């Protein structure tokens, strides 16, 4: 099951440049939360702070606290421990190109020391089912490489790979921006189903997508969280003029 995320006084920096300013946010467990805002507003930086990817950039640093369930992300938790519980899907599908579909999904398990073949088979099937890809690839699990799939299938493969280690939180950074509308629809349907079991945070440039998939939406601007509320409120009657100007297309 998913767990909640609590972010307190989060500040992020690239060298001397501050990119996030005092972000406070509660993400509800087993809900989809969308983050929207113009390019460079800090939404991707924010999501990368949730699983400590921000600090992989030289000179980048983070201040403040993030709790994922009972886990304190920046206090006594290793990145490896954290990423077992927090899966991530990126803008561009990034399957391991030379690995088969099966091995792509099983990679995380194998890295974590799983050797029981039967157990791995079960997890691969469950994860591919969870990513709504099983029926399309079940006959070519070992024959086809991840890279041989279509863009939409590759993205669902990446979701299956993330699900295989049974995370509690799934972070998605513009997961549909490289996909056609049909594949986008499939991923959105998947998000709707996945939130039964996972907490989902999705960064998207597509405001209609945020409106369709997320129960909560946060609007970022210039590194600040301007507004965070129920999605229908943000898209029908936002509290802040800046949010209204953005969702109505008056800037951005």
């Amino acid at each position, binding site marked *: 099951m998913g767990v909640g995320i609590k972010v307190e006084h989060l500040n992020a920096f690239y060298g001397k440049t501050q990119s996030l300013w005092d972000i406070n946010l509660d993400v509800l467990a087993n809900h989809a939360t969308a983050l929207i805002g113009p390019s460079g507003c800090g939404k991707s930086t924010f999501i990368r702070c949730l699983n400590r990817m921000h600090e992989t950039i030289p000179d980048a640093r983070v201040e403040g606290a993030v709790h994922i369930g009972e886990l304190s992300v920046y206090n006594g938790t290793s990145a490896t421990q954290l990423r077992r519980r927090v899966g991530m899907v990126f803008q561009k599908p990034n399957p391991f190109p030379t690995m088969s579909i099966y091995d792509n999904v099983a990679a995380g398990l194998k890295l974590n020391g799983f050797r029981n073949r039967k157990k791995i088979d079960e997890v691969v099937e469950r994860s591919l089912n969870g990513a709504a890809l099983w029926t399309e690839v079940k006959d070519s699990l070992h024959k086809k490489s991840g890279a041989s799939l279509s863009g939409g299938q590759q993205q669902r493969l990446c979701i299956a790979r993330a699900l295989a280690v049974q995370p509690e939180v799934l972070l998605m950074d513009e997961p549909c921006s490289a996909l056609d509308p049909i594949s986008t629809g499939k991923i959105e349907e998947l998000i709707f189903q996945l939130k039964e079991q996972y907490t989902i945070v999705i960064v998207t440039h597509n*405001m209609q997508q945020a409106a369709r998939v997320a129960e909560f939406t946060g609007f970022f601007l210039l590194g600040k969280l301007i507004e965070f509320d129920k999605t229908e409120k943000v898209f029908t009657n936002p509290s*802040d003029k800046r949010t209204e100007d953005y969702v109505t297309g008056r800037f951005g």
Partner: protein
Amino acid sequence: MVRTRFQQEMEELREKLLRMGGLAEQAVDRACQAYSERDLARCQMVLENESLINAAEREIDELAFDILATQQPAAIDLRFILAVTKINSDLERVGDQAVNIAERVMDLIELPVVELPVDIARMATAVGAMVRRALESFVEGKAELAQAVLEMDHVVDRMRDEAFIMLVRKMNEQPQVTQQALDALLVARNLERVADHATNIAEDVIFWVRGADVRHHAQELAAAQPQPTPEQ
């Protein structure tokens, strides 16, 4: 980012609704003048112009539908379009009420003139003011003006109730004027309905401007100040 086409379409929608508002307002004015002056020609104008109002209603609905389908408006723009479609429907019904009044007047013209204890002209003035203010609140996007319309509705309701009591009494006392009294009573009821539509329009303006739903006894909400903007 300026969405030129979108802004043009929104402006077109606004203008079409204003034209529609003008037609509906004119229809009520003409019908009421026709009542005061027993003017058959004005009644016929009201009847003839109804098709213009109906055509305008269809045009507005089509444009609103197109904008929703192609532009995916949000927030205040979405509320504006929803408000326009509802106001459109109310204006069309205002036109229907004007036709009903004109038909009553045409009936009255055929009957002997009698003294009736009802001031239709006064009621028409109040209702006309409500329609005008409701449309002004839309033109100016001012919830305060719309709020004033909501408060006027009670006055018109009282006028209708008084007209009902007085005209029923008249019918009891002088059965020979029943037909004229009944026509006048129906005109009073039609005017009260127009006032209800003006009230609906005002509520839709408040919804558009403030995002507050003030229908059905929620007028207190409209009077409340909009929520303060949270700052980070």
